């Protein structure tokens, strides 16, 4: 019998379209205490940089209506530790790995991409050109089509696995950026990263986040994510990993209708740490209820 949840992300075959969003799942070890990671379509790990990063001062998170801000600042143990400890452990869990990579310069990205793409279990890279919480690099790469394309080209040249470029929603025209990275050879797109936001502590007259601003995620941004995925899906041919506020099996299918071939669940893991296996278990029943044989039929099937 065919697996109704199987999807293809370009050349990549996944047993289901559900994966964690980068930064919301660490390197998987903590959630593995709660359930078997093998159930997931893939695991997207926290952004990896060349050297270890401490990240921003705390507070790093703030709750907002229907969402949250974060300004983690890419805290991670750096390429060496990731390749020596984190990825080997994850590879043993028998789940496909997608590594989110970040850097301050093109050379940083290239160095990380070259090494990390060759680690066991890594099936794709996710190029984070959209982190709003670092001074250098990050979102700066993601708001200009030219720099986004240049970076994509450089990483593609060294990566041994497909490269997904993760776009920033903080732009006037996301389609323009998507087309630029498509032309530069990207194998797929991830969207969206967080919207830049500010939360204020009225009594202290200060921003809640030590970093002043942070990235807005969670259900609040879902309509913006769906709109951008829909726009991009119609304009480029690349497979899309969709994300932004997903918190139910219904949300997953809405993202696929808008054009996502797979989805990432981020903030919702904090609300319900068991959400991903729950969604995976609910999807077959929901598809049956909707009269859909294979989830991949829904990709881009929105009628407008």
């Amino acid at each position, binding site marked *: 019998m065919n697996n109704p949840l199987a999807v293809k992300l370009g050349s990549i075959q996944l047993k289901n379209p559900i994966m964690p969003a980068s*930064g*919301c*799942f*660490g390197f998987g*070890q*903590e*959630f593995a*205490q*709660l359930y078997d990671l093998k159930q997931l379509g893939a695991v997207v790990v*926290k952004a990896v940089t060349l050297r*270890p990063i*401490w*990240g921003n*001062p*705390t*507070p*790093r*998170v*703030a*709750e*907002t*209506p*229907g*969402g*949250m801000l*974060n300004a*983690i600042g890419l*805290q991670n*143990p750096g390429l060496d530790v990731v390749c020596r400890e984190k990825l080997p452990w994850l590879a043993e869990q028998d789940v496909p790995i997608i590594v989110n990579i970040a850097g301050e310069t093109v050379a940083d990205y290239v160095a990380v991409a070259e090494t990390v793409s060759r680690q066991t279990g890594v099936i794709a890279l996710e190029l984070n050109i959209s982190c709003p919480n670092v001074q250098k690099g990050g979102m700066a790469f993601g708001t200009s089509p030219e720099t986004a394309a240049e970076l994509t080209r450089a990483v593609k040249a060294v990566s041994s696995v497909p490269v997904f470029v993760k776009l920033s929603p903080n732009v006037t025209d996301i389609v323009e950026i998507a087309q630029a990275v498509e032309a530069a050879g990207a194998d797929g797109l991830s969207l969206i990263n967080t919207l830049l936001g500010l939360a204020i502590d009225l009594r202290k007259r200060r921003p*809640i986040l*030590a970093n002043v601003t942070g990235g807005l995620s*969670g*259900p*609040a941004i879902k309509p913006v994510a769906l709109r951008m995925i829909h726009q991009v899906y119609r304009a480029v041919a690349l497979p899309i990993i969709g994300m932004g506020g997903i*918190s139910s099996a219904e949300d997953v299918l809405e993202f696929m209708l808008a054009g996502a071939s797979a989805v990432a669940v981020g*903030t919702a*893991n*904090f*609300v*319900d*740490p*068991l959400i991903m296996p729950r969604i995976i278990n609910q999807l077959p029943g929901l598809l049956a209820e909707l009269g859909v044989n294979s989830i991949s039929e829904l990709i881009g099937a929105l009628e407008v």
Partner: protein
Amino acid sequence: MNKYLGTILNSARLTSNVFKLVVSVPELTENVTPGQFCQIRIATELSHDPLLRRPISVADYDPTRQKLTFIIRESGRGTKFLARLVPGQQIDLFGPLGTGFPVHRLVKGDRALLIAGGIGAPPLYYLARQLHANGVECATILGFRSHSESFLIDEFSQFGPVRVVTDDGTLGSCGNVCTEITAWTSEGLDWTHGFACGPLPMLQALQAQLAGDGRPVWVSLEKRMACGLGACAACTCRPANPNSTASGPRLVCKDGPVFLLGEVELGE
């Protein structure tokens, strides 16, 4: 640690803005260490707001009847929601989380000093009960802003001597927990292990006062959290000595909330 459905058995006011929730969690069979906490979901599954869970320390646990107690101060939206819960309603708990107090580092004959500021008292209550059961002597200092905000005094008294101190002198002596440590010490207080929980300025003052004391003091810290599990890096704190080995960032939700005083930088 797991996600559990609890049923409110009792909700009672301890002061005008502190309340106690007793929750039955039939499926909880794990061990719960004093100092561990739960991430409590605020909104129901039909609502996305307030979105995040709230970290609340376990104030007591009865493993035979699977009853968890939380003592909570109404401050913002989330705790206001919790304050409105009535018996029979259900809540979604994720826990027990974090690394609690090292109860078993103390043995019969050790003398614990418990230092609580305001809403810092609840986790120390559960700790005191376990230490007392293990034959450890407990002396407790409870600091409050004023008489009307005091709670748990009788409960701590079951386990040993209690001194109360208030900012305005309306109950016990006038001062703060630091002045009370000094006073009580001069009256002969003797302790081997310290445990503290309270607002950040109190912990900072304590750190200054006890610097170089030599006796171990464990403190329970607060930090804004998202996952509560160690996966998101929201709740990082820096080791106080960045040159020490094992010097990576520490996570309040996983490596803490209990740290040895002096182990990590104290900050918001």
